[in-house]
């Protein structure tokens, strides 16, 4: 019993210490006197690696998710004779929840893991140490551009995801199942509120962007210097990021609804 209690205490201390170190880590990057003019080309490079290279998976997933939603939504609404509400159903599901959450999960798997692996490999091959010995702060040169690019790309990817998923729903609902095009779009326009739904989705995706990139760069930077260190860090990034996206989604939704 005493040993178990000791182990529990030890685990709690380790978790608290890791949280503390990750907060110091992010603060060191955010509050670093960054030379924006010099960081800009690196930032653009990372926007390409994290954002542009994530586009294929985002585009393909969003189209099919929108199409499945259109098909399932039509099938259910048809039982009640209210297929006219299909546009509303597709748009609200995607803009409020599916868009930010699935983009977050895909971003964690595609960009988060690659970020961790890249920085982790730089650690294990002593590239970070050599950068420090040249007198360059890796927080400025390696971490900051990736962190800012991740935070910048995630809301944009989420917006693209939402637009294409709605288009997928439109293809299935209107082009295939013959829902009236005017009704589809006008119901959507009436029910989707910019401040509540669209802005809410963007706030969620922005928050997910911060958390995913934070976890990814922190895990990469603290990779163990062993051959399996990078694989452990990459796995941790995907697992922690995915869990955080789902937990934060619930918290943010609860805060946004607000009137319980």
């Amino acid at each position, binding site marked *: 019993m005493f040993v178990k209690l000791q182990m529990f205490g030890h685990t709690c201390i380790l978790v608290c210490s890791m949280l503390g170190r990750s907060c110091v880590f992010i603060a060191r990057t955010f509050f670093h006197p960054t030379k924006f003019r010099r960081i800009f080309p690196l930032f653009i490079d990372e926007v390409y690696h994290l954002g542009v290279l994530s586009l294929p998976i985002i585009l393909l997933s969003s189209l099919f998710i929108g199409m499945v939603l259109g098909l399932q939504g039509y099938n259910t609404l048809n039982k009640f004779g209210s297929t006219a509400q299909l546009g509303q159903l597709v748009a609200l599901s995607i803009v409020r929840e599916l868009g930010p959450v699935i983009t977050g999960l895909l971003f964690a798997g595609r960009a988060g893991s690659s970020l961790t692996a890249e920085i982790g490999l730089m650690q294990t*091959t002593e590239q970070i140490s050599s950068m420090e010995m*040249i*007198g360059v702060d890796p927080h400025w040169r390696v971490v900051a551009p990736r962190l800012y690019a991740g935070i910048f790309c995630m809301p944009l990817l989420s917006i693209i995801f939402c637009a294409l998923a709605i288009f997928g729903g439109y293809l299935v609902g209107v082009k295939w199942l013959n829902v009236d095009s005017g009704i589809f779009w006008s119901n959507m326009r009436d029910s989707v509120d910019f401040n509540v739904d669209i802005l809410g989705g963007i706030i969620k995706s922005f928050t997910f962007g911060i958390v995913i990139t934070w976890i990814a760069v922190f895990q990469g930077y603290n990779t163990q210097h062993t051959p399996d260190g990078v694989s452990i860090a990459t796995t941790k990034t995907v697992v922690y990021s995915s869990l955080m996206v789902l937990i934060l989604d619930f918290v943010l939704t609860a805060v946004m609804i607000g009137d319980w």
Partner: protein
Amino acid sequence: MDDNGHKTCISVDGVSYSWFDKQICNNISLKIPKGKITVIMGPSGTGKTTVLRLIGGQLYPAKGRILFNDVDIHKLSYKELLKIREEMGLLFQSAALFSNISVFDNVAFPYREHTNMSKEMIYHLVNMKLEVVGLRGARDLMPNELSGGMARRIAIARALALDPSLMMFDEPFVGQDPITVGILIKLMEQLNKILGMTIIIVSHDVEECFKLADYLYIMSGGKILGEGTVQDIQGSKNGHVQQFINGKPDGAIPFHYTAQPFSEDILNVC
């Protein structure tokens, strides 16, 4: 000033360093004279590389202090530490080239980060540094296209980019062919004699180090076992030192890592 009247570049005073429960350095004291080649030798795993990392401020000692040009390295702020590192060059055992940029960009990296030189000037300086290590023709290659020896030479060119006053080499001769070893020895001698660069070499290659060293330290088990000029070391009566420089398998330095007797291991399993 050391005992021979030379100005001291690095002074390591009673430094101890532990990694978790393992004591890597135990109350080590060294004096690295300015403008000389100092070699730290010893068997693998005795804390030689740790000493270099302590001097570079990448590790913090549990006890003692390290002065670089009379400045306590470990009392500097991080920003000051980065600044003072522009005066140091460290060649890592693994070369540690940046894998996502070309050889040219690797050598140009310190210039782009620390100076406002024009592109043309950087181009000429990088070519000069690459010419020194004999790899000007490899400037457009990526690090994954280089052999281990070539990568090490590129890393030397990068470390020399800002013409540091102190250059530290961590096992520079490992994995190099005899011609490259000869060229490296000549390069180190030239850097030392022509530019007056202070050089620290960490190595266990006795023959090469004896050719180069002005002063030697022999380390084992985290302690300094012997020090002096090549003649002093060769004439040392210390059993540890003699065992190491003559490569004797039996002696005071154990070949086996500390363990319980082998018979006990066998009996416990049975």
